[in-house]
């Protein structure tokens, strides 16, 4: 147990050319990734993109076919035993024993990390307190709600205070309130210096939690950067103008065209255009529209969302695909 102390100056997670196939399916097709210490790396992609496979390789559960991966400078295959002291894993399904109580689960995990019974129990009680599970501490976890189980699962991953944490879709299937409370917990861990690799299909989750986002699809990294950088790739701010009842969209499009490198689009009375400059864009738009005598009902600048990014990168929306595809192979 290292209490979050850095054991290397290098990146927390370093992945080079990682390949993994299951039969004919290429789950990982040459992935490169880097996450600095204390950072949150969000791994974004639809189901079946290879996110879970990547996490399993990094958490020493699965051997890659080719390429290499280091976590805190340790090779995930050759130095797996040493690495396991330094990582915590919380998976898609809450991996707790449902016939044990919350406290028994955490005590067991603590003892398996090598702690004695009393200190494992003390640590378990600490974590139950922190995760708001004290009242349920003595109940078998099969009586817990989905959100409570996820919190317990996350608590189990934190028993040894690991400096690197892998969270595989930590909030999938949770109700909005449970998601918010889990997000707050994760933000707390990051504030204490924990490096987090987080996979998610939810763009808002990546947007809120991740310092860097890696978008993967079909086992390949297709984009990487901060949320802002990814959004900027789509060409900056979008101006949306709702026209008056009797305004002519054609006239509006012609009036706004000089503000952009692209042709504005008109949909009934909604005109959209990507603008070159954010500053003064609204004033200029109002001036141009009033000179052209086009009545405006409402107008706003908005940044592209990660949804726009995902759509542009993969050709399909993230959550729509996630819902229609078969669940990712748990392997």
């Amino acid at each position: 147990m290292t209490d979050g102390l850095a054991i290397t100056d290098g990146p927390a997670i370093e992945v080079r050319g990682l390949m993994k196939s299951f039969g004919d399916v290429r789950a990982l097709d040459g992935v490169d990734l880097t996450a600095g210490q204390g950072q949150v790396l969000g791994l974004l992609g639809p189901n079946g993109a290879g996110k879970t496979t990547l996490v399993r390789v990094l958490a020493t559960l699965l051997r890659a076919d080719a390429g290499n991966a280091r976590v805190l400078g340790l090779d995930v295959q050759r130095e797996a035993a040493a690495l396991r002291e330094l990582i915590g894993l919380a998976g898609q399904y809450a991996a707790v024993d449902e016939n044990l109580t919350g406290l028994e689960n955490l005590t067991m995990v603590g003892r398996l990390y090598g702690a004695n019974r009393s200190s494992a129990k003390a640590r378990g009680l600490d974590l139950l307190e922190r995760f708001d599970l004290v009242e349920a501490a003595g109940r078998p976890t099969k009586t817990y709600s989905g959100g409570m189980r996820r919190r317990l699962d996350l608590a189990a991953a934190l028993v040894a205070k690991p400096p690197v944490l892998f969270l595989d879709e930590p909030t999938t299937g949770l109700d909005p309130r449970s998601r918010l409370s889990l997000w707050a917990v994760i933000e707390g861990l990051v504030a204490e210096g924990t490096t987090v690799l987080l996979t998610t299909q939810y763009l808002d989750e990546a947007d809120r939690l991740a310092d860097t986002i890696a978008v993967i699809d079909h086992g390949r990294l297709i984009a990487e950067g901060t949320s802002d950088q990814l959004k900027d790739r789509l060409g900056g701010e979008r101006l949306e103008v709702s026209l008056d009842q009797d305004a002519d969209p054609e006239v509006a499009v012609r009036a706004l065209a000089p503000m952009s490198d692209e042709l504005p689009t008109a949909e009934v009375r909604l005109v959209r255009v990507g603008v070159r400059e954010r500053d003064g864009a609204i004033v200029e738009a109002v001036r141009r529209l009033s000179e052209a005598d086009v009545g405006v009902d409402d107008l706003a600048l908005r940044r592209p969302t990660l949804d726009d990014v995902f759509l542009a990168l993969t050709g399909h929306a993230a959550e729509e695909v996630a819902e229609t595809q078969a669940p990712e192979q748990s392997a």
Partner: protein
Amino acid sequence: MRRLVSDTLIIAERNVIRLPRAPELLIGFTVQPIMFVLLFRYVLGGAIRTPGYSYVDFLLPGIIVQNTAFGGFATALGLNEDMRKGLIDRFRSLPMSRAAVLAGRTLSDVVTNALSLTILLITGVIIGFTFHTSFAHAVEGIGLLLLFGYAFSWVLAFVGLIVSSPETVNSVGFIVVFPLTFISSAFVPVASMPAGLRQFAEVNPFTVVVDAMRHLWLGAPAHNSVWGAVAWSLAIVAVFAPLAVMRYRRAAGG
């Protein structure tokens, strides 16, 4: 090595704590064997000739050996459930001994086996079973049963790790365990079986173990079957423990 022992005990403790909280499994280890004893004793027993012994004396060592083999199902079903629920992933991500989850699982089967053994012995005594040998031999018999049950748990540990669902665990288990235990000396004298079946029954490890039990409890001629039973138990562990651990290391890893 110290890590293996302490981790094994932690896992075994976990499995024992769970027992009373999953009563459906417990019923399997208590009510079901009693039912089998009563059915054989009163439904089939009247038609089966067992020279030298009453059928209840003949039957009990046999049915207890069969029941011991079924004790390993707790391991197969438990490991299978742990795998599907992601607990095996959690254990494999921990800096714990790679063999401890399986060793702890099979060790806790010794506890469930001791429990159902006790229940079967009490049932047997109520319906007329008596030991024909010394107290020491009777205790040796119990020791042998627990050893063989432990060994067979490793077979089922391997089964639990290679199949995908608890339903498959059950059907694979029954397809293997039922013929193995029935084509043996457990329920009828081997001499009554047709050729082919009889040769199989004679070399079947279950026959060796049942004969050893009849020697220790009833004083039947042993023909080295006690040492044979110990040797079989050790051989089963020697083969299936490494197989199961190998499988565990890459469990659910595709």
